[in-house]
Each structure stands twice: as structure tokens, then as C-alpha cells.
């Protein structure tokens, strides 16, 4: 078994991995930038190493600093979490070259699956359905026109090395094709130093449905069923659930088998996610995420399997402790991502101090959180704060439980998307299960915070109480009674 794990990440996912390790009696080492000295993942870890200034390029993205921190503290393994270097093949290789264990797939599998065109070809060979389209080997614009005609408009131009919507262009008709190909090439070149682009049929109202897979180093690959992640803003998921309302048992079985075939084709190990677009009863391979996903907890809720603990076991050379036939998902799980952002102004991120936090406590509810009352949300990183995961016997119960939990999720000092999430979950089309990736743009396009209206006197009473109440702490510093004194702030670092 592993002896000590370096957490090459921050926030809620670093804490999530820490909990899994702690249950297995494995100590953990946090790393942090100067902006994160009082972050929860640092306070909770067994040890913590400062790795640089706030910008991620000078801290969380520095391969040499992370490896030095692992060596210095006597770690034998590194967990990358998600984001930052999680899908960077060079990092995975550097960890192995330093004599450490990378808790994730091989550098080779990350590299193979990271190239979208390469992944498409691999899936074609493995008989996994892909979106109609492909590469134009000659690079001639004439050939792009011909290919686009063959697959039919609208088409989408994508960057081979792309991600995050960069180098992507939707082309409604032939007039815009050449211009879009050229613009996408320019964008792809500047963002990924690779101008290669390819064409795909553009699906107009698809669902995003993904399958969790997990594989050991002995050739055992199992899928842990699907997650529906169609509720997105800025191409980023905000609500995920399992099971999906769109799949029949037959489709579910077929897609699960396709996901296993996809993982096997890349000789994949550890936990990974095979993403599909689902449209009019057909599914198409999109890509493989070679890491633990933000939304992994919903799968854990319905299957009872701790994915991070399994990753650790696989990394230490153990066989999977279950076979496909052992997996029987039960009930329904929903996850909402709590972001520091303002949904009323284009989901603009909101950094600052959290003056008050009260997270709900409800039966069959899980909260993976990286924040506390009094902590700062720095401007430098992804604005995810925490995740709320609600389990229920069916979709109705899971959704109702989530709404109840969100109504009790109180956060003051920065803007959050809590109220927006409640409105999404309460929308009749959400309740009917009619989801697609454009759901928010279609159903909640001009969302704004409800007006205070007749509750104004109550809010003013609250304001008066906050203004008039003052108290003095033992140390003699005056604080407003309304501003809670955080345990963490007063204790400093805590030994657990």
C-alpha cells in the first residue's frame, strides 16, 4: 500500500482525496500558493508545503516544484485531482521518472486520449460510434468544403489539441465555412501551438451523458454506469445526475459496453470517464477524461464504491475488488456545483472574503467543500467552492432533497449561484427530465435575482440589527457581532 500521498491540487478535490487517504491510514501532504496559506486543504492536511506565488503558472502548474515537494516530504505517490496538471502527460511521466507513483492513468494513455483526432480514430477501430466528421489530411480548404457537404450542415470546426471551447466554431452554412476554418486554425495555433482542426456534424440539442470506467493493471475494466451532465453554462457542467432519464436499459447496456471498449482500446488504468453526446436515441463518442471528475460523487452514492480509494488501491498494484456483475446501482443522485459567481451578470466570477457560511445538514446528503466561514476566495483559480450531492430513492426525491439542501446553503460575502441552481431544479422542463446542453440558454436566459418586494422591512430589520450589534473579543479587537469569528482564523494551523 502507498505510504504518503502528495495532493497536487487545492480546494474541495484536495480535501476529497485527503479523506479517502485518511480512511486508509495514509498521511497526505498539501501544497499551496501564497494565496492559499489559510485555505482549508492546507489546514486539514498532515503536512503542507508552500510552492510559490499565487498565479497557478508559478505554483500549482509547476511540475518541478510539485515533485520537489513530494521528495522533500517523503511521499511515494502523487494524486493530481482534476484541472491543473491532471491531464498533462508530461506531469504523469515526470512523476514516474522521479521514482514516484502517479495515481491515475499512464502518461501514454493520457497522451493518446488527449489528441482528439487520435482518440476518434482509436474509437472507430474499437467500434465505438463517433460523431460523423473527420480530418482533412491535405489541409486544403476545397477538401473541407467537400467533407462538410458529405456530413451535412450545420458542422462544427474543432481543434485537434483543443479543449474549453477554444478553436471551436459552429458553421451553419457553406458561406461561413472557410472563414471559420481559418479563424479556428489561428485560435488553435495560439492556444495549443497546433493549428490542426477537424470537422464534426453539429448536433443541435444533444444531451451530455458520460460513463464512469475504472480499470486495474491486470486488464480488468468495469463501468459504473452513467451520469447525465446536460445542465451547463459556459460549456461547464453545473448540475449532474444519475441515472439519466434518457436511457433505456438496452441503451444503457450498449453504452456501458462501448465505454469499456473505449477504455480497453487505450489500455486505460485507474478511474476515467468516457463522454458521449446523445441525440435522438443515438450516442456518439466525444472524449475520454483521463482523471477523477468533479461529478464523481453521484456515482459513489448510487454504486457504493469509493472511486478515490479504488484509484489508490489500483495505483498500489491491487486488482479491482469487484467485477461488472457486482455493480448494481440503486436510487438516484444529483450533484450541484456551488460556484463563486453571479448568474445575473453572465456568471461573472466573484472573489473575496466569505463572511458567513452555513452548509446544510440533511439525511442522505453529502457536501464536498473547500471553504469555511472567514476564508478568502482568491481570484487566481477556478471559482468552484463546494459540491452538494443529494441521494434519494428516485429522481423526484433526490431533486426535492437537493432543493431543500440548497435553501439551507447560506453563504454571504461573495456572490454564489445557489439561488440560480434552485430555479434550474424547479423548472418544469427539468422536472420532466427534458434536458439538453442548451437548457440554460433556452429556459433561463435572462435570469436575475428575485426582487426583495414585500420582504423589504424584514431585510431592513436585519440590516439594523447588524449595524447596531457590536462586541469586543477577548483579544481586544473590535468586531461586528454579525461577522463570525472563524475557528480556523483564531486557531491557525491545526493538528489532526
Amino acid at each position: 500500500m502507498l505510504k504518503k500521498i502528495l495532493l497536487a491540487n487545492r480546494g474541495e478535490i484536495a480535501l476529497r482525496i485527503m479523506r479517502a487517504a485518511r480512511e486508509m491510514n495514509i498521511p497526505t501532504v498539501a501544497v499551496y500558493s501564497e494565496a492559499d496559506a489559510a485555505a482549508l486543504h492546507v489546514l486539514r492536511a498532515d503536512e503542507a508545503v508552500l510552492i510559490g506565488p499565487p498565479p497557478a503558472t508559478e505554483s500549482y502548474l509547476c511540475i518541478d516544484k510539485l515533485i520537489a515537494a513530494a521528495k522533500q516530504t517523503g511521499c511515494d505517490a502523487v494524486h493530481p485531482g482534476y484541472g491543473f496538471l491532471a491531464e498533462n502527460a508530461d506531469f504523469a511521466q515526470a512523476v514516474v521518472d522521479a521514482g514516484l507513483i502517479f495515481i491515475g492513468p499512464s502518461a501514454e494513455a493520457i497522451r493518446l486520449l488527449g489528441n482528439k483526432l487520435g482518440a476518434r480514430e482509436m474509437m472507430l477501430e474499437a467500434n465505438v460510434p463517433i460523431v460523423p466528421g473527420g480530418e482533412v489530411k491535405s489541409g486544403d480548404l476545397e477538401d473541407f468544403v467537400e467533407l462538410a457537404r458529405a456530413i451535412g450542415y450545420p458542422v462544427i470546426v474543432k481543434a485537434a489539441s483543443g479543449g474549453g471551447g477554444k478553436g471551436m466554431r459552429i458553421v451553419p452554412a457553406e458561406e461561413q465555412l472557410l472563414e471559420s476554418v481559418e479563424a479556428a486554425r489561428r485560435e488553435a495555433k495560439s492556444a495549443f501551438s497546433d493549428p490542426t482542426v477537424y470537422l464534426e456534424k453539429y448536433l443541435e440539442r444533444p444531451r451530455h451523458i458520460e460513463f464512469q470506467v475504472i480499470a486495474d493493471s491486470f486488464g480488468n475494466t468495469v463501468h459504473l454506469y452513467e451520469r447525465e451532465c446536460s445542465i451547463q453554462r459556459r460549456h461547464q457542467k453545473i448540475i449532474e445526475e444519475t441515472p439519466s432519464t434518457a436511457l433505456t436499459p438496452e441503451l444503457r447496456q450498449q453504452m456501458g459496453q462501448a465505454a469499456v471498449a473505449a477504455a480497453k482500446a487505450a489500455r486505460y488504468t485507474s478511474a476515467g470517464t468516457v463522454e458521449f453526446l446523445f441525440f435522438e436515441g443515438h450516442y456518439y463518442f466525444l472524449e475520454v477524461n483521463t482523471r477523477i471528475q468533479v461529478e464523481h460523487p453521484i456515482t459513489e452514492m448510487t454504486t457504493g464504491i469509493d472511486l478515490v480509494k479504488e484509484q489508490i488501491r489500483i495505483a498500489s498494484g491491487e486488482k479491482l475488488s469487484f467485477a461488472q456483475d457486482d455493480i448494481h446501482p440503486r436510487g438516484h443522485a444529483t450533484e450541484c456545483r456551488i460556484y463563486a459567481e453571479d448568474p445575473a451578470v453572465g456568471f461573472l466570477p466573484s472573489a473575496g472574503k466569505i463572511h458567513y457560511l452555513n452548509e446544510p445538514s440533511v439525511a442522505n446528503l453529502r457536501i464536498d467543500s473547500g471553504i469555511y466561514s472567514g476564508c478568502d476566495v482568491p481570484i487566481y483559480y477556478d471559482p468552484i467552492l463546494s459540491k452538494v450531492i443529494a441521494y434519494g430513492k428516485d429522481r423526484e426525491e433526490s431533486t426535492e432533497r437537493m432543493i431543500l439542501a440548497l435553501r439551507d446553503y447560506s453563504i454571504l460575502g461573495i456572490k454564489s449561484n445557489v439561488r440560480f441552481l434552485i430555479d434550474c431544479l424547479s423548472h418544469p422542463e427539468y422536472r420532466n427530465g427534458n434536458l439538453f446542453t442548451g437548457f440554460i440558454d433556452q429556459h433561463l436566459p435572462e435570469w436575475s435575482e428575485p426582487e426583495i418586494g414585500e420582504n423589504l422591512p424584514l431585510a431592513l430589520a436585519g440590516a439594523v440589527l447588524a449595524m447596531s450589534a457590536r462586541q469586543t473579543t477577548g483579544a481586544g479587537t473590535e468586531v461586528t457581532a454579525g461577522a463570525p469569528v472563524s475557528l480556523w482564523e483564531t486557531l491557525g494551523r491545526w493538528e489532526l
Partner: protein
Amino acid sequence: MDYQFVLNGEVVAVKAERLGDRLTLSLPTGNHVFDIVDLGNGEFLLRNDGKQHKVVAIKASNKVIVLMDCMTTTFDLMSSKDGDHFGADQGEHGDKSKVVAPMPGKVVKVLVEPGQMVEPKQKLLIVEAMKMENPLVAPFKAEIVKVNCTAGDLVDSDKILIELRQLT
């Protein structure tokens, strides 16, 4: 005690009297009486007309933030100078003819120039922060009076980036 709060750019005057656990507010629209239970940590239970409401209220520098029934209301505070309040010429509840950086970040692109007419919600410039590109849009139909930044500038929060003149 008299209080003056600013909500969405408008001043709300409140006269408050507290007697034990009873708070009486006199507003221009009428009087309201609340029985208060102070739950600590900024949490209060307010009873009024046989109903009870949990309210969280925090004073943070020049603002009071109140959370009630999943709704957040931010009141700006009047400064000591008459008729003036903090954040009058900056921030979301202030003068909307000045477009300010909502947070420290980098100007990625400026999409308008002085003299140009813009429609409500038209994108004026793009600021990158927290790994994302955030468009700042015109609050109303306006003429661009001044552009105080160029692409590549690092800007602090509340820096005035663009000045507008509202057109009716």
C-alpha cells in the same frame, strides 16, 4: 436611531427603536414591529404577524448583507457626508455611467471606441479573471465618452475602464 441604507442606488431611510427583544421600524411606507431572537453569528429569528423568519445579517466594511429565504440583499451604507454614499461612483449599485473592473484581472479585448453608440447589453470589453473571459456590457443605450484601458492592461477591482453617457 436613524439609518440610511442605499439599495440599488436609492436611499432608504429607516427610524429604528429597540426595546428589549422588540424592534420597531418606521419606514416611509409604515411601521413594522418585530420580536427578535439573536441566535449569534449574525443569525436572527424575526417574528412578525405570527410568522417567523430566519435572517442572516453581516456588516462588512461599507455594506450590510442580508440573507433571507435564499435571497441576498446588499445595502450600501451612507457615509458621514450628507447625500453622499460610499461606492457612489463605482460598484454595481452606484453610477452606472462608469464601467468598472468587477475584480482584479486582465483586459483581453476592448470592443468599443470613444464616440461610438452602444445598445443595452452590448459587449464593451472583455476582462479575464479566475480562468474565464468575462464580457462587460453596456447597462443602457449610451455613447462612449472615454476608454481608459487597452488590451493587455492589468486592472484592479473598481478601476473605471469606460465612461458612458446615457442616451434616452
